[in-house]
């Protein structure tokens, strides 16, 4: 039964043009940033003394070189690796925090429910960017801090979704039945409640990856995220805060911006596709 259901959802997903487009965009970008640097033997860290710095695109450097003579095409691809890594890993952290907390709040209710949900509300009503900036400043900007901070602050949406699902699941008859046959609480939670509470979260996970990549790029753009010499799409665009770079060298900041948009659109389309595929009301 479960197998048929999931197959039906997969079928629905694959018939959704937007969802498939999202899958193609994300798949293409992931393959490009992983494979192209290997096959093209690109080096994002070394200064090319023969060519010099601030050069326009040429055959050896498809996007020219930056202010210290590093190849910008290589930095675009390596930056993509880091931006995708931060986006996906921080979402994993959000999920690992959000699912248990939502489960506990929804199943046990009482004090746990009040505390967890009040804290979630407080988190959600605070401007996230300000909080993230304070935290990143406290722990010092790096790939690790950015990933952890975005991940930890992203737990609320996941927790709320799980909480809502668990609230309705715990009242179902089959949960009463498992209690009646004497199943232990951890076992009920893990094998009965959780599997039924998770599916609606899948769509949200895809949206979260998109959001995390946006946040990371904004932070790096402000100089508070991924630090050079490491590249990220945001910190390549950082150079365009200089009006000279903005006006005279659009090849520096335009491609990473387009990459961010593509990857965000891709993950959002996938998320919408998953949501519609799991929703029995849509065809």
């Amino acid at each position, binding site marked *: 039964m479960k197998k048929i259901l999931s197959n039906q959802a997969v079928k629905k997903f694959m018939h959704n043009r937007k969802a498939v487009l999202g899958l193609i965009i994300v798949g293409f970008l992931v393959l490009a940033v992983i494979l192209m640097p290997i096959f093209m033997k690109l080096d994002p860290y070394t200064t090319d003394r023969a060519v010099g710095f601030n050069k326009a695109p040429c055959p050896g450097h498809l996007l020219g070189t930056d202010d210290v003579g590093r190849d910008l095409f290589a930095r675009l691809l390596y930056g993509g690796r880091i931006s995708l890594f931060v986006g996906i890993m921080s979402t994993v952290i959000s999920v690992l925090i959000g699912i248990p907390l939502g489960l506990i709040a929804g199943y046990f209710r009482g004090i746990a429910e009040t505390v967890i949900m*009040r804290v979630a509300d*407080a988190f*959600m*009503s*605070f*401007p996230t*960017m*300000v909080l993230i*900036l*304070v*935290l990143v*400043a*406290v*722990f*010092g900007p790096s790939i690790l801090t950015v990933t952890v901070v975005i991940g930890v602050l992203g737990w609320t949406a996941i927790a709320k979704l799980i909480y809502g699902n668990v609230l309705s699941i715990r009242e179902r008859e089959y949960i009463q039945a498992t209690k009646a046959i004497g199943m232990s609480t951890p076992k009920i939670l893990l094998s009965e409640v959780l599997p039924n509470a998770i599916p609606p979260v899948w769509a949200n996970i895809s949206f979260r990856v*998109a959001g995390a990549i*946006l946040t990371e*790029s*904004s932070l790096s*753009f*402000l100089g*508070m995220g991924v630090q050079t010499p490491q590249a990220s799409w*945001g910190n390549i*665009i950082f150079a*365009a*805060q200089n*009006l000279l770079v*903005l*006006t005279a060298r*659009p090849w520096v*900041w335009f491609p990473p*911006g387009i990459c*961010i*948009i593509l990857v*965000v*659109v891709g993950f*959002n389309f996938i998320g919408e596709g998953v949501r519609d595929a799991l929703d029995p009301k849509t065809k």
Partner: protein
Amino acid sequence: MIKYVIKRLFYAIPVFLGITFTVYLLINLAPGGPLSILAASGEMSLSDLEALKVSLGLDKPVLVRYFLWLADLLHGNLGTSYRTSQAVSMMIGQRIIPSLLLTGTGIIGAIIIGIPLGVVSACKPNSIWDHISTFVAFIGASVPNFFLSLLLIYVLAVKMKLFPTSGMYSAGSNGDWKDLLYHLALPAFVCGIQPIGNYIKQTKSSVLEVLNEEYIKTARSKGLRNVVIVIKHAFRNSLIPIVTTLSLSVPFLIGGAVVTEQIFAWPGIGSLMITAITSRDYPVIMGVAVLICVVVLVVNLILDLIYAALDPRIKFK
């Protein structure tokens, strides 16, 4: 209702203390305190640094300092900035109007355009308005603010010279409102584009949901005009989720435009926050945190009162 308001205000106290204490603890635990920058410059002797530390009160334990700060706050004193030696309340006061002007213009614009667009695209699916709405929402959700700002500056300000690239007033102008609007246009547009997408999507989906209700069918079969049905029955009853979405923009009003303010060199709370964070100006960071915290708590309270006004089934408990 007054009893309810007082009760809610009491509930807000632990939240307020919790948030301010957490922020205070965090910024004070940060490696590289405000003095380390001075120490690294080598211009002050060790004994001078020690004296400065005592005069700023940094020699006391964090917990003691938090309570001293709290006591000052209750007297309406937010302290003085380590960096500029100005009163924090004054520094925030200077920045709050430009900030509200920027984010307020963006959000009000988004409400005025977004909600009608949402209603129309719910009533007339696949019309030109529906397609425009989908496109605007798409841009808002997927183009990062800073990239949109750069594109606008590049195309409209640098290439076409239609707008200034940054700042709030032209050099030499003395607070002329036309000059202000001219500078406000681009950053306010950027601030509005994300909210407008959310408002359109939320309005459309909640109006669509209500349009499928039985009482709408009843209204139709009574022969009511379509405009009356949409405005009086459908829109009125879909307001609760819309108000929730609007409320989520409120914390954004203060300090939400960090990136936009930075790019357009707009003298608001967001850019104040960035300088305060990079120079470890604790009193200013705390001042902004308090401001945001109070605004958020007050708005949540007002929101609950609006909910009750919109839906008589919601009772004050």
